[in-house]
């Protein structure tokens, strides 16, 4: 640097995170050399009682396994590649650049229900499609979640007629996203609400309230022909809402 130029003075300050520690008095936190020595003592087994406790409390964060697992599950939801109707167009958008669910770790859309955690029912479900959707949901491994996207899937929206069935009638839904269709942002919000639900609450919501845990379809070897179909309409009971 030329004489008379700008002088830059670098002051060595202890990092805030080290200063704030509970043991800032005994071990000089700003001195990395002493910390390194303490670590060596610890490994040798020379650190005892108070110093050992000090060492551990500075470096170890305790939590429960459930919380860690839930944290991980909430941040790596794999949605199923599955579209039903026009809502699926909006669903595709959330993996594209503008909404980009990869920011949260949900970009891995699995093509097999066996590898997926989340099924997004993006569109209207007809009576004939309902058993197929239910079979896909049953094929998913626990833990698994379901989002009902759009008005048709939740309340049948503009197609409230003889041909459709609401998703709540044949499978437990965790999050309902309203809209016709919902904007990608709305679906993103729904997925983030699901993350909150996974990470924070043991409450399984609808599944708990409706006793839906363990209601998965199981077909025994002696099931009669055609009994695998879930007929969501009761015969003759089409009198309507």
């Amino acid at each position: 640097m030329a004489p008379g130029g700008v002088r830059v003075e670098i002051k060595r300050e202890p990092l805030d995170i080290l200063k704030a520690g509970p043991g800032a008095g005994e071990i000089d936190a700003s001195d990395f050399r002493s910390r390194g020595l303490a670590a060596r003592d610890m490994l040798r087994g020379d650190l005892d009682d108070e110093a050992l406790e000090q060492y551990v409390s500075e470096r170890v964060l305790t939590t429960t396994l459930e919380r860690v697992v839930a944290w991980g599950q909430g941040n790596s939801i794999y949605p199923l590649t599955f579209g039903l109707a026009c809502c699926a167009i909006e669903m595709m958008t959330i993996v594209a650049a503008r909404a980009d669910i990869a920011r949260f770790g949900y970009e891995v859309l699995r093509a097999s229900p066996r590898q997926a955690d989340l099924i997004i029912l993006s569109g209207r479900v007809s009576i004939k499609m309902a058993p197929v959707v239910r079979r896909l949901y049953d094929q998913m491994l626990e833990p698994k979640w379901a989002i009902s996207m759009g008005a048709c899937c939740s309340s049948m929206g503009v197609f409230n007629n003889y041909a459709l069935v609401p998703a709540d009638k044949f499978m437990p839904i965790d999050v309902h996203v309203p809209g016709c269709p919902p904007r990608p942002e709305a679906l993103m919000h729904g997925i983030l609400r699901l993350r909150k639900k996974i990470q924070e609450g043991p409450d399984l919501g609808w599944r708990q309230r409706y006793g839906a845990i363990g209601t998965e379809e199981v077909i025994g070897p002696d099931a009669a022909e055609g009994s695998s179909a879930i007929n969501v309409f009761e015969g003759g009971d089409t009198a309507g809402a």
Partner: protein
Amino acid sequence: MPDATGLELTAQALREANADSVLGTVFFRGRAVIIANPPHVHEVLEHLKAQGYSFLASLHGVDYYPEEPRLGVLYELLDMKQVDRITVKARVHTDAPQIASAVDLWPGADHPEREVYDMFGVEFEGHPDLRRILMPEDYEGFPQRRDFPVGGEPVLFTYNEEKSYGKAQ
């Protein structure tokens, strides 16, 4: 389209073959319609096919409620050489909704006839595989009939979830 005279000539030819086969003709806004007697609709279609109307453009059902007979089966025929179209209508009662199948004339009538059966309950005699095509096979009723309720499910909200499915213990 045949003009009104052409329609009458066609109908006359059909009546000469079988006096009962044609109930009437309608010529409205350039469309020629032959109203066929349901028991003889197959003869009419066969005759028209031989005459040149060799393409079945559409086969569909109509419910004319409250008029009787209620159920209509409409055949839209096309003569691709003369570029000529003609419609054949046959109307049946809901009590006896039987009509001859046209699958032997046009194999493509298979799925349209299944759909008309599915939605309106018209039974096509001689159809090789007459079962529902769109609705589940164990569905009851014919949803496109006009006396069929629109249907739909009661929508589940928080205020009525207590009396909904799964909660009735």
